[in-house]
């Protein structure tokens, strides 16, 4: 039991920055560049951890609480998820609600830390983040309802259990497909990827997530980047498990399926980022409301 928890945490902690490298490599390939090395995110984190801090005289302890919560929440959330063949270390009836609300906690403190600096740019980023996320949350709940209906269970481990294979072969496969699309959209919103947000832009006015962390420096910035990378893996694990519900029963085989799935997901995100333009800000809520309607449709299909 303890060995498996340690293994799961190790996979998350060691593996988390790699998908970011894959995304950047994919984008570079599309643009005809060589791009940064695959392990560049690791180098960045190591460099940031060695650097010192610089604080604005306006900030207080809340400014430091943002990175802390942003780092701890994905770690705890990963303990609620089954990773490939590893069963979820903490599993109880209704843990899926805790999973959703943990990310709410991290959003609260990231946005509060942004407002703590008193910068109007970071204020704009904070309000955009909370607005888009509150539209994304009902989508997640609709998707979870569909999955719970198929699995007849209220634990994340049960939702993402082996019954997914038969779900794909059942007449309800269409609703599962829609859920997959909806969750992918939520993944893009929550991890601030194109078309909702651009992690690479350097124009403060157009950014959402990146603008909220403008004032962070050194290890704190490193923790934010690391936390974001882990969040991508944790939310990605949901999508990957839905898309690839293969279960060989052999621990290493299952883990390999999971890891390859995450890397494939990173490639898909890279392709989406290379082929799509960023949406105008007023369009984002419309896309999210549209996705909510799609997820309602999935629920209706599943219940019929």
């Amino acid at each position, binding site marked *: 039991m303890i060995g498996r928890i340690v293994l799961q945490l190790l996979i998350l902690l060691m593996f988390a920055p790699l998908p970011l490298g894959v995304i950047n490599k994919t984008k570079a390939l599309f643009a005809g560049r060589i791009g940064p090395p695959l392990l560049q995110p690791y180098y960045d984190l190591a460099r940031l951890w060695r650097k010192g801090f610089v604080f604005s005289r306006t900030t207080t302890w809340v400014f430091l609480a943002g990175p*802390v919560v942003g780092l701890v929440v994905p770690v705890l959330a990963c303990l609620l998820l089954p990773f490939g063949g590893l069963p979820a270390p903490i599993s109880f009836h209704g843990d899926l609600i805790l999973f959703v609300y943990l990310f709410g906690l991290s959003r*609260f403190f990231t946005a509060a830390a942004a407002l703590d600096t008193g910068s109007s740019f970071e*204020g704009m980023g904070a*309000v955009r983040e909370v607005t888009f996320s509150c539209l994304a949350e*009902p989508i997640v*709940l609709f998707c979870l309802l569909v999955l719970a209906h198929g699995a007849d269970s209220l634990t994340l481990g049960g939702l993402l259990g082996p019954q997914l294979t038969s779900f794909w072969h059942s007449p309800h496969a269409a609703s599962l497909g829609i859920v997959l699309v909806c969750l992918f959209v939520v993944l893009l919103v929550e991890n601030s990827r194109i078309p909702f947000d651009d992690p690479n832009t350097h124009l403060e006015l157009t950014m959402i997530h990146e603008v909220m962390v403008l004032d962070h420096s050194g*290890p704190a910035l490193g923790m934010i980047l690391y936390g974001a990378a882990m969040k991508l893996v944790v939310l990605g694990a949901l999508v990957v498990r839905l898309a690839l519900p293969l279960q060989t029963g052999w621990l290493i085989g299952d883990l390999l399926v999971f890891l390859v799935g995450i890397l494939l997901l990173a490639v898909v995100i890279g392709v989406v980022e290379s082929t799509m333009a960023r949406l105008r800000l007023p369009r984002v809520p419309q896309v999210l409301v549209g996705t909510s309607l799609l997820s309602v449709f999935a629920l209706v299909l599943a*219940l019929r």
Partner: protein
Amino acid sequence: MIWLLCGIVLMGVSGLAGLIGSRARDGGQKLACALILVGVTLCLPALLKVLAPTATVINWRWAVPGGQFLLELDAISAAFILPLLLVVALGAIYGLGYWRHREHPANATKLQIFYGLISAAMIVLLLARNSLLFLMAWEVMALAGYFLITTEDHKPEVCRAGFIYLIATHSGTLALFGAFALLGTGQPGALSWPAAASFSSPQAGLIFILALFGFGMKAGLMPLHIWLPGAHAAAPSHASALLSGVMIKTGIYGLVRLTSFFAEIPAWWGWTLLLLGVVSGIFGVALAIAQHDIKRLLAYHSVENIGIIALGLGLALLGRSYNQPTLVVLGLAGCLLHVANHGLFKSLLFLSAGSIIHGVGTREIDQYGGLLKRQPLTGLFFLGGAVAICGLPPFNGFISEWLIYLASFKVLNSPSGVLSLSLLTAPALALIGGLALACFVKVFGISFGGEPRTAAAASAHEAPATMLWPMGIFLLACAFIGLLPSQLAPLLNRAAAQWQGQDHPLPLSLGGPLAPLAAISLAGWILVVLLALVFWRLRRCSQGARRDLGTWGCGYPFPSPKMQYTASSFGDSLVRLFNFGLWSKRHGGRPDGLFPATSSFESHTPDLFLDRLFSPAFQGAAWLMHGVRRLIQNGVAAIYLLYSALTLLVLLALLTR
């Protein structure tokens, strides 16, 4: 039980102590506070025995016709009384620092008298088992509430808020008279209450509608919430905490108690409550985001939370109608726990808002800023309350919302097709939670983060210890329920059993609906420990860092506090999303020409129902009646004589048949 009664009496008369001492000193106020504390302590032993198998009852003869002095303490009453006692006691201590006799000689005595009276009346109301006793306590509470709201009766807006409250509460009481009269028809002890799940009547639907109007008016369900924002903004902060944290819950108590009488629950009762809950929840929080006044904002959040409570109760009622025992337990446990939780974190928020107002001297959020440096403890307490009210772990709000989520997921297991409509509760609750988070990020970030926007905010001072301790205890209580929720599971389970008239509650052991609470508490502890460790580590390695630089202003070298994001601009993008229902008013703001002159912008969001519907409708009715009166009472003596003659003729025709 007799000690409980002594405690209630002590609380009721506590305010009279203020009449003894001189107005220039605080002696009377301290005595009153001590009396309330003693009263609360006397009430505790009875509450600790609420899980014992024998019921605690007082049954005295009472000379009033139809009346019976019947008090009974069961788990449902206890779930409401426990948070009440905490709020009353801590609010009284807070008042020592916040509303001192010396500083408010004109109205502090009045506030103290009615503060004690309303507390005692509410406890009697929660214990009463007779319609007459209940309604008497209800009226004492309603009137004492009026005097709490109009504490500062020299201000016109306070008088207006009090007047609207008075109209609302009396329309509600009128409906309750009807409901209880109908409840009494056709049974022997007409005004005594029937046992749980034993009553049936052909007029059940009408009783429910009347009770929903009367109790919903007090609770502040959405179309009936009109009195709430103004009243909570007008009262002193610890009185607002009592009104919002406890008094509006008596409406919920009434609904819970009344629905427990019926043997059969029609399905439309549950659907109605679910619908009202969703409307109150979403529009309550949307209106809250649009507010600029911190206490009005908190008041709209009460509407939102009453919506969440109604969702829980609605699910429990549906569980009764469709025979789903786990749905009943989870829904009612969520409803009752959220009642207690809202009492705790909303009181915490009102008290810390009072501490801000005490320090800065205004209720406008846009005039705050940088308060965390000037009021570090108030800021910490407000942050805790904000995290709790957003329903985020590891605080108590998460537990009750989790129970309601779980109830709505349980619907998936039911075979009934119609019931699956109530699945929509879960996404609605998620939207409410997301919006509440946005709103409290706004309040906390704008008030406590950044630089002070005004000179008053720059010179703000921390509150005295008598105000800080109560807030700290509220925060501890929130954390206690959040981290050890399984402590309350037996009480909630028993309340759910009593509500449906069962003698034996469902087992709490493995497989019972409330069993996962222990696992949540484990996750909560892991979260707290991890956060503390990482925060401590980061804090230590950032010790020697430079802290003398300005915030990055994108290259602009002369930033000023006025350039910060304001609460209005923060709320604006969310308010625009809900503009289909809010209709905010916006004036000015667009500079024109190459060299624009000074221009101003203001936005404000009137209440959906009070300012747009009821006020115009009532003004129209008043105008109409004015015309009718001029027509009838025209001052011509001959016409008046004609009225008398006509009356006599009609009476003759009626009586000589």
